[in-house]
């Protein structure tokens, strides 16, 4: 109950200060910003060069081979798709649950969703042997009577990702319109022109707000089942195959949990960075960090549980192939990565259980990054060991990616970073109008808070009592 005394946000904060703080963060990039941009561009150049080699010379330069037809590209694809789920979680699920503490931090999480989708979408393209024919997976009318194979989970991916990308971009954009209007009202020069166009003539009248609220609610309603389906479909890429270690019925929830997990961890990372660099201490407050961290911890435990479910069902299922693979994961060539994944994914999150650590930004930064390393390993451990150890023992092989493959994976972080860096300087990374709403509502309900808390506590007690009585 000590927690309750601590406010998520300073309710007395002046609304004008919110505007100035956020708008300030969008202006005048410091040298550090440009250095980071340069680093990202350099990382992208590495990937572009690697892709050039791969494009002109062939996929063989990624060290792919007969059993290992997929490797890090697909692992990265799953990783980035997973990352994208955090935005949905924060903006849609918490929105529907009226958890208003999400408001200061959901904007950049949503941007992260979009950008990690844009990154994830690159990987299925990069991994294609004939990239130039990638549009063949889309259902377009062709005079040759060709269609994609709708039975293929990869074709489902194309549908799911395009749906998810458009929905999450729309969601991000719609949610940003009132803020764009603020930017427009305060902007100068090219920014003014840009925001005038993007704000679509928003003037905050009641009609617009009414429609806005409805739209936002409907979008959130669709986004949640969509997000769940997207990662389930991504898991179908594996679960629909008959390979040991892939043909797992618990994969859809496992993938969704893993996605939320890595997404939350990424939010923590960016939370710390934005709080530090943009001095958003007033908005990205410690209580909010605590809530995020607790959420992450809860999801980590769900993920751990699903891991155990998978292991147990394999162990007791007595499918020789699956069992063999599980043992090989734990003891074979991939064991260091496997155990790192278990440690980083299931043990390390216990740091989040400590209040002092949760409130220590450097720790949270390091931990969140390590959690995501663990989650990257998880995706790798889903893709690679199965390929290395399939039904046919003659083709068993352990493969480590080449410089080309790692270069492209490395570059994808640069690409994501660059998109995000551009975003924070062009768009408000904290939702100004929603922080105002949050402050407004909290102020208003401050007086009633005690009463509400009392009812909350007494209500269930009476119910239980009544229940017992009726028996």
């Amino acid at each position: 109950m000590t927690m309750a005394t601590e406010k998520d946000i300073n309710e007395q904060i002046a609304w004008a200060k919110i505007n100035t703080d956020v708008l300030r963060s969008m202006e005048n990039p410091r040298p550090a910003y440009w250095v980071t941009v340069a680093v990202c561009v350099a990382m992208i150049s590495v990937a572009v060069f690697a892709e050039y080699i791969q494009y002109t010379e062939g996929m063989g330069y990624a060290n792919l081979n007969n059993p290992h037809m997929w490797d890090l590209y697909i692992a990265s694809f799953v990783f980035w798709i997973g990352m994208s789920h955090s935005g949905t979680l924060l903006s849609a699920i918490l929105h529907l649950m009226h958890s208003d503490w999400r408001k200061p931090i959901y904007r950049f999480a949503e941007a992260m969703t979009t950008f990690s989708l844009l990154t994830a979408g690159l990987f299925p393209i990069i991994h294609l042997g004939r990239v130039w024919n990638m549009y063949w997976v889309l259902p377009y009318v062709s005079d040759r009577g060709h269609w994609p194979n709708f039975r293929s989970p990869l074709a489902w991916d194309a549908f799911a990702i395009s749906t998810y990308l458009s929905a999450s971009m729309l969601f991000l954009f719609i949610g940003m319109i009132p803020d764009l209007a603020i930017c427009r009202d305060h902007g100068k020069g090219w920014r003014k022109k840009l925001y005038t166009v993007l704000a679509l003539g928003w003037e905050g009248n009641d009609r617009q707000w009414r429609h806005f609220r409805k739209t936002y609610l409907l979008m959130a309603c669709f986004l949640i089942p969509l997000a769940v389906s997207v990662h389930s479909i991504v898991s179908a890429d594996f679960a629909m195959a008959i390979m040991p270690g892939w043909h797992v019925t618990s994969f859809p929830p496992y993938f969704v949990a893993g996605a939320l997990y890595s997404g939350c961890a990424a939010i923590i990372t960016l939370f710390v960075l934005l709080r530090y660099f943009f001095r958003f201490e007033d908005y990205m407050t410690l209580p909010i960090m605590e809530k995020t961290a607790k959420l992450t911890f809860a999801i980590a435990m769900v993920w751990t549980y699903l891991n155990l479910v998978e292991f147990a069902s394999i162990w007791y299922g007595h499918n020789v192939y699956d069992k063999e693979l599980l043992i090989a994961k734990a003891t074979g060539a991939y064991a260091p990565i496997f155990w790192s994944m278990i440690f980083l994914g299931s043990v390390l999150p216990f740091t989040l259980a400590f209040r002092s650590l949760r409130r220590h930004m450097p720790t949270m930064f390091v931990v969140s990054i390590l959690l995501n390393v663990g989650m990257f390993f998880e995706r790798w451990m889903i893709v690679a060991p199965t390929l290395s150890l399939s039904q046919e023992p003659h083709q068993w092989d352990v493969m480590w990616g080449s410089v080309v493959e790692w270069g492209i994976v490395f570059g994808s972080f640069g690409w994501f970073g660059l998109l995000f860096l551009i975003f924070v300087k062009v768009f408000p990374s904290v939702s100004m109008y929603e922080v105002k709403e949050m402050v407004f509502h909290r102020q208003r309900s401050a007086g009633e808070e005690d009463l509400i808390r009392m009812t909350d506590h007494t209500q269930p007690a009476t119910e239980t009592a009544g229940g017992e009585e009726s028996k």
Partner: protein
Amino acid sequence: MSKHRLLALFSDFEEAHAAIADIRRNVVPGVTVDDVTMKSPIEHPDVEEVLGERPVHIQKFTLFGAIFGVTFGFLFLAGAQATFLVQPQGGKAVIPLPSNFVLMYEMLIFFAVWLTFFSFLFLSGLFKKRSALYSEKVSLDQVAIMLELNEAHTDPIKDLFQKHKVLEIREEVIK
């Protein structure tokens, strides 16, 4: 008689509510609450209480999009599968329901989301030129009440606003 448009800015939300409540109670005859537009920097709480129920039709478009997505999805997929030049199973068409359901589900969401978005763009009155009375304060921290009324009613309304501690009143004449 010329028509006037007034924009009153309030810093106190409660006062603005009270002002509208007065209009609603026909304190100034001839001016109804239907003429009032309320502008707010946040998704204004209790706006229905103040302005009364005003209709929103977006959900109908959403429903249409969802239904269209499912039906079109199935017809499209089945049609594509039946006319596939290369039939993946021994030259015969295969219309596999489980995978089609997955895709129909995606298409449901796809069309529902886009229709929601477009209906929002058009129904919410965006893409209009902002009136000259638009105040940037509205996007900061003040509530505005805008209403169109006959010249005769402007003064009583102004008085009403003054009573409710209006900060600023802007006025323009529209014919």
